[in-house]
């Protein structure tokens, strides 16, 4: 194959020398007209960074001539600083996308070769290919570890976070190339902006995660959170608000914000925030009343089977009680509570949950508590008087009985 191509190139070269230059450059790689690989090697094999005649051997581009990519070189000797290799004739879309990306916008930004290498570019399934997640982490990480991270500092911590995440673990340690690596979320040639500042961007994040997590996305699309995003409420959460981004872990992963123990805090980021909840007309005492409940205490003390927020409210498909499809709609409470209390009867469907003991909440209980506080106060006062009276009598030398 190679020798056949070389022979063809030689014939064409001979033709080109005889005939006036042909109008070149179509979408297909131009057949070599200029110097041969051997001609190039004549100088470049002895250069500071030597390039041998067989530089492309074994690469995906094996068989192409030097001038197929270094297409501005038509003749020898060439200009002192010829242009960089041009990938666009074959990879037009990739180059167009790249040109529109932040990588192309800044001088010194990543070019084709920064990521893909130059002469030894390998095919998709091979180890060195950018289609491999492991390679992406190495290549993107090499630059971005030095660059500022999205929230200050260098990107190094962000890359480390990814490496330790459930996604990073799958890609780097378990050899699961389908698991997401850099380009899966951030895009490759056309970098994807993953902002969270507005509701539309948050919807995009959900859609992106949904390309793999279809079932979770389907539930989320039916949820109150997604409905709020659709209405343009940037305060409503998308996937990453609960799961994190680079740090993402499964429910059992270390430090996971969706681990049973962490769920109340994760939901509480918004649901315990008074001003945030006021925007939605929602109560902000739900986390406090939970952590003070039997479920909340049991969970905190390590009973991971104890109900957390998601046990009753669902996770992705959370809906308000007024929605008939909601797990906490009175009609569904028997079933929802029944997940843990198998014989839960109708008693559960009449129940008001998250009732604070206060004049606004459980008023009767509040009244009883106030009574008790008063009575216990009197008991303590009586006890103190009892002690003081005895000590006083002793000091005065009076006979002390009980």
């Amino acid at each position, binding site marked *: 194959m190679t020798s056949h191509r070389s022979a063809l190139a030689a014939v064409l070269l001979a033709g080109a020398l005889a005939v006036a230059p042909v109008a070149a450059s179509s979408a297909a790689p131009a057949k070599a007209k200029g110097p041969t690989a051997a001609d190039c090697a004549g100088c470049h094999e002895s250069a500071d960074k030597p390039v041998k005649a067989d530089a492309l051997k074994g690469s995906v581009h094996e068989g192409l001539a030097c001038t197929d990519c270094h297409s501005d070189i038509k003749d020898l000797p060439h200009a002192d600083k010829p242009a960089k290799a041009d990938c666009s004739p074959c990879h037009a879309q990739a180059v167009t996308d790249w040109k529109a990306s932040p990588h192309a916008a800044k001088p010194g930004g990543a070019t084709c070769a920064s990521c893909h290498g130059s002469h030894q570019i390998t095919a998709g399934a091979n180890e060195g290919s950018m289609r491999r997640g492991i390679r992406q982490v190495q290549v993107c990480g090499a630059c971005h570890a030095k660059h500022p991270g999205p929230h200050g500092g260098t990107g190094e911590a962000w890359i480390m976070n990814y490496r330790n995440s459930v996604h990073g673990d799958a890609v780097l340690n378990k050899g699961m190339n389908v698991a997401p690596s850099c380009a899966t979320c951030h895009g490759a040639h056309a970098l994807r902006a993953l902002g969270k500042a507005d509701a539309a961007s948050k919807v995009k994040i959900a859609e992106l995660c949904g390309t793999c997590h279809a079932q979770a996305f389907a539930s989320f699309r039916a949820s109150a959170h997604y409905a709020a995003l659709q209405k343009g409420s940037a305060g409503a959460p998308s996937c990453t608000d609960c799961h994190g981004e680079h740090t993402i872990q499964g429910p059992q992963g270390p430090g996971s914000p969706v681990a049973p123990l962490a769920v109340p805090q994760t939901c509480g980021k918004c649901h315990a925030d008074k001003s945030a909840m006021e925007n939605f007309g929602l109560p902000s005492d739900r986390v406090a009343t939970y952590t003070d409940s039997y479920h909340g205490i049991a969970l905190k003390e390590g009973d991971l089977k104890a109900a957390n927020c998601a046990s009753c409210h669902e996770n992705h498909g959370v809906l308000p009680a007024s929605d008939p499809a909601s797990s906490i709609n009175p009609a569904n409470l028997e079933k929802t509570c029944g997940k843990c209390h198998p014989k839960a009867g109708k008693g559960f469907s009449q129940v008001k949950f998250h009732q604070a003991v206060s004049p606004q909440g459980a008023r009767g209980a509040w009244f009883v508590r106030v009574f008790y506080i008063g009575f216990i106060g009197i008991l303590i006062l009586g006890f103190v008087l009892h002690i003081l009276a005895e000590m006083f009598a002793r000091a005065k030398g*009076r006979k002390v009985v009980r």
Partner: protein
Amino acid sequence: MTEKGTVGTVERMTRAQRLVHLVLMVAILMLVFSGLALAYHEQGWAHAIISLMGGFGGRNVVHRTGAVLLVLVFIYHVIATNVSASHQRNALASVPKPADLKAGWATFLWRMTGRGEAPKYGHYTPMQKFQYWLIFLGCLLMGLSGVVLWSPKISLELFPKSFFDLMLVVHSSQAQWAFIILLVWHLWDVHVAGGNFPMNPAWITGRMREDLYRAQHEGEWEAMQKGTKE
């Protein structure tokens, strides 16, 4: 059996009473520690207690075992005071009377001013009666609210959730009332007050030093000397 060589002793508690007192004490300690750990769950010491009991499940076992013990003691106590003659006598002695209120007040006045006379107490001092009946009432309320809380499944079938919440408040508040009476006031009285320091040994030996018995239950003492029971 004498203490300090020369001082004689008087029987204060029978063997059966001491046994019941011991079971009651163990039950209350189990209940108070495991219960307060729940009521004050946000405190570090509460977490330490729960860990010590083997986590949340272990805490439940301790609390419910204590509850069963307390209920058994309570039932025994109620039956015994109705069938046994000696218990009946004690029960009658524990009935609060207007005189107790007067005696309590008189004691306080005498201690503070030295006027009048120190009242003479019977088998139970007014303070003991006060504490006994508060704890009796406390046990009833703790038991009833505890039964409701034991199984939300059953109690929510029978009562509205607001009643369940009410019982939760009663249970935890009543527990703190019992804590003040038993672990603070009662322990002060039997270990420190009235010359009992370091301890009134009646709960172990069943007997009290004569001089202390006389000082603390002078009315009963005088009746005993005359050969009649109060």
